[in-house]
């Protein structure tokens, strides 16, 4: 069992991050080095400043708000919570004063960030079961949603346990020791991390996250990097 824990929590993590960073990097460089489109792809009438409107389109999804308002609510919640999650995970490495502008306990959001994400992901998933989105979807779309759901569910479970039902075996300090050891390339697994009642959750959380990171550069998740330049093309 320990071997499995070591594999998932250490070796696979390194591998996944390598694939994620190198894969995404290489793919982006390759795409951006392709010849540029020589003609305009703009939609009119135009609004100025164009770059500001491109940012607006990229981060606020105005067309979704207009045509699919309910989807838009979930999309905004989902992406906002994703951002909070990234901040939350950074705080599991060490303290960042900048994030404590609004004082909070690690992990961010009192457990609700994860809960909202779970609900949003279920919404996205069930949406895909309905025609005509069902006919548009390909397996990749389901795999990504299911993977994300599992990651968030097991991850949040650890947070909820500490917050909501007083099961405090795995502490922020334990995560910090583990994650910092990974970062400094001197990996160690503190006793609590692999021997508490929640280690199982942690391993599953990390396992699914690894799979997601490995798949990321090759999937439609790349839209997170390509949305802005594409919206810029539309705005001219």
């Amino acid at each position, binding site marked *: 069992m320990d071997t499995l824990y070591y594999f998932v929590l250490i070796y696979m993590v390194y591998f996944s991050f390598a694939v994620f960073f190198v894969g995404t990097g290489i793919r982006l460089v390759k795409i951006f080095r392709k010849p540029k489109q020589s003609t305009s792809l703009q939609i009119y009438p135009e609004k100025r400043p164009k770059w500001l409107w491109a940012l607006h389109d990229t981060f606020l999804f105005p067309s979704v708000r207009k045509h*699919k308002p309910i989807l838009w609510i979930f999309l905004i919640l989902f992406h906002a919570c994703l951002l909070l999650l990234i901040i939350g995970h950074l705080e599991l490495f060490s303290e960042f004063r900048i994030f404590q502008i609004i004082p909070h306990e690690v992990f961010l959001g009192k457990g609700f960030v994860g809960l909202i994400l779970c609900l949003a992901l279920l919404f996205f998933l069930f949406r895909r079961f309905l025609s005509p989105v069902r006919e548009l979807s390909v397996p990749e779309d389901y795999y990504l949603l299911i993977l994300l759901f599992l990651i968030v569910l097991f991850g949040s479970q650890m947070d909820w346990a500490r917050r909501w039902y007083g099961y405090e075996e795995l502490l922020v300090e334990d995560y910090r020791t583990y994650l910092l050891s990974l970062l400094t390339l001197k990996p160690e697994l503190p006793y609590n991390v692999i021997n508490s009642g929640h280690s199982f959750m942690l391993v599953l959380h990390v396992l699914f996250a690894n799979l997601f990171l490995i798949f990321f550069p090759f999937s439609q998740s790349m839209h997170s990097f390509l949305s802005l330049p*594409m919206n810029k093309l539309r705005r001219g």
Partner: protein
Amino acid sequence: MDQKTRKDLLKLFQGKLNEAMTFYLETCTRCGVCIEACHVYASMGQVRYIAAYRQEIVRRIYKKYFKARGKVWPSVGEAKELNEMALEELYEAAYSCTGCRRCMVYCPFGIDTQMIMSIAKLLLIGAHSEPEILTLLADTSIEKGKSLDIFKESFLVGIKKLEKEVVKKWEMEAGETVIPMDVEGADLLFVALAGAHSIIPTAAIFNAAGENWTLSFFEAVNFGAFAGDPARTKLILDRIVNEAKRLKVKEVCICECGTAFRVMKQLAGKQPFKVSSVTEVHARYIKEGRIKLDRSILNGVVTYHDPCQIARNGDVIDAPRYILKHLTNDFREMSPDPTYNWCCGGGGGLVALGEETLDFRMKSSKVKADQIKRAEATTVVTACENCHTQLCNLNDHYQMGTDVKFLSSMVADALVQK
């Protein structure tokens, strides 16, 4: 399909993969926001007409041959082999898409379906499965550019015959040239279509405005663009660019043809002349007081159909409305926002294919007919040859009982002789 054919087709595909195209093929999340965007889907309700679905038909081939995933794990994206059946699907997708880019307005990323369909069209040409008539028409245009001298005399004779009609709309002093041709140093080169209706009204308006103009020997329409053939598109375009340079004109004015205008404006690159649509030029004459229009001629409610390639994709939105304000007191918008105007259903070469596509064009444009009916207008005005033909067809098919008119001919009819 044999190995060699497939290899050649994939080479054509590869040639299309510039940065923007790769963005478009990599990004779609199949979120379904574009579902309501396509007039074909809105009218017919079949999933294969949803923008994202059309794109997937091309994207699946991309996933198979241009992504590592296509070899390791093809099923994850439903990657598909390029074969005869795939070509049939590509044909269906590309020639039921009018390239109006309404879906691009809906897409949260701004994916350009028309551009993705250009891959499908190019593959069809490579496989000799494109609608032959489009290539044929394109080749005729190119041939005309190569051997202008053969066509020149008969063309001049034909144009001479039109002069009488032009003078009926705007009287000229004896000795003045009614339709000037081949005038070096003219200010404006007017590129019309083959039909007299495209030349007569605008010629009268130019003369009324005292424009120093000259008529192009070539017709504006670009069948190469309809067929999705970049090489032919360029050759057809170059005929006009070269003529404009030879005559040293300051402005090239494109007649009421959406494709011609967009191709000229966006594909010609940096040139010593500026490119305008005839609508913009007419609006300018009114603004500068060079022509006066009689507002009392037109009765009833007037509405304007924005041609996709001229408005949403070409930025000529205010000019037609400005002109219409001088033609009628009773103008009514068809769509609250021109960006969201429904396509007439005739673009992308569909009208050029004529009877062959008529049934599909009528079925796929029900939403357009409904939109026009809602405007309760007596006259529907537009500024594109394709749109005009299609709107006339719709008018007959759905018995809408409206007049379908060209904006230019309405301006010509309302000219006030000083």
